[in-house]
């Protein structure tokens, strides 16, 4: 469902159809996603239009890639720091 929503806004019927879900079942699933603040829903006439809220997903991605990401970022910071240190040493020597 979330993957579908990354492609654009979908109404509930569109969201339910690929999963062979009933309308109430889809509505329940969306409610859980709403509670997790991952999906926003607005009512237009008889149609429930859903959009994805990417902000918390960023955290999820941080979480699953956490360990590698963490160390890659630390190594990047170390690289910059060592460069700075050596520049400073050269300036001090000059």
């Amino acid at each position, binding site marked *: 469902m979330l993957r579908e929503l990354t492609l654009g806004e979908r109404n509930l019927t569109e969201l339910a159809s690929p999963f062979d879900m009933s309308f109430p*079942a889809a509505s329940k699933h969306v409610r859980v996603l709403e509670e997790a603040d991952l999906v926003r829903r607005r009512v237009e006439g008889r149609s429930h239009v859903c959009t994805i809220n990417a902000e918390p997903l960023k955290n999820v*991605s941080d*979480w699953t890639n956490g*360990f590698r990401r963490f160390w890659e970022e630390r190594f990047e910071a170390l690289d910059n720091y*060592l460069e700075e240190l050596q520049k400073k040493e050269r300036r001090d020597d000059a």
Partner: protein
Amino acid sequence: MTREHQTEMTAPTDREFVLMREFDVPRDLLWKVWTDPAHLAKWWGPTGFSTTTHSQDLREGGSWRFTMHGPDGHDYPNHIRYTTIREPEHLAYEHVEMPGDEPACFQAEGLFEQIGDNPPRTRVTFRMIFPTAEDRERIVKTYGAGDGAIQTFNRLAEHVKRQTGSDADKPFVLTRFFEAPRQLVYDAWTRQEHLAKWFGPPVVTLSHCTLDLRVGGTFHYEMKFPGGDHWGRWVFREISPPERLVFTCCFSDEHGGVARSFFDQRWPLEWLNVVTFEPHAGLKKGTVVRLESWPVNASQGERDTFRAGHDSMTQGWGGTLDKLDAFLAGRLPSSAARSG
């Protein structure tokens, strides 16, 4: 990981190098990893290198063409011609200098002797012979070939060990080249004033940081993340300047106790980090840092979580969404969860 066998390097004459090492595996396995490009890709070359085979014709007079990719971003095309192939005991080749390649000219041979059956043990003797002493010297100076050869043998040892071990406990490994002398890189990991500068997140420095650098001593820090703060703690197990640091890691609290991960309850309580600092064996002068991590005293579920945490790079965004969707679906009443 084990330190039971060491690579010995000698120079019987001024135009030679000889490396010798014992391995606790059968000779056939060593022959295989030494001649099969799929294996060579995983160990051939110094620390931080990878190797791509372009073509291989494994017979006397046949060639192996490959490129070694250095951790400093430099590529080294290579062409060797096999001169002796006597499976599984003797392999010899000459390095062919091609126009446009890095200049390097030498002959090499590997001898594989089975010195024990139960448990299996094999001794490998690898000899490189240069036309003159000056040629050997040039290769040592330009490419750090001496360090490079020992690092290559160490990678070979780790690779054969992985062939016999369980794949499930594959450690997390991250390697990176730093254009800085080894002592300075080591200092950056072992001095509080340095750690405080780079170990923190990009913008904020560590909000708390104490370092007690001795075996059994700790590095205790607080880190600010956009989603919240967390405490971490290292306990040093080995301090070998300027080559190697071994420490356990855990999430912590302000008192320095062990805490569960704030992002995943199934993450192991403690994991071991081995950080090695090696001279870069290539054109650029610098240091290759290699970080290796694996969980300690962890349950199978925690080991799986750890593994998933570092393998997740390959899954990409779609996989993450599917996992999240499935997780949320698990919280639905059963009627709706069916198709989650």
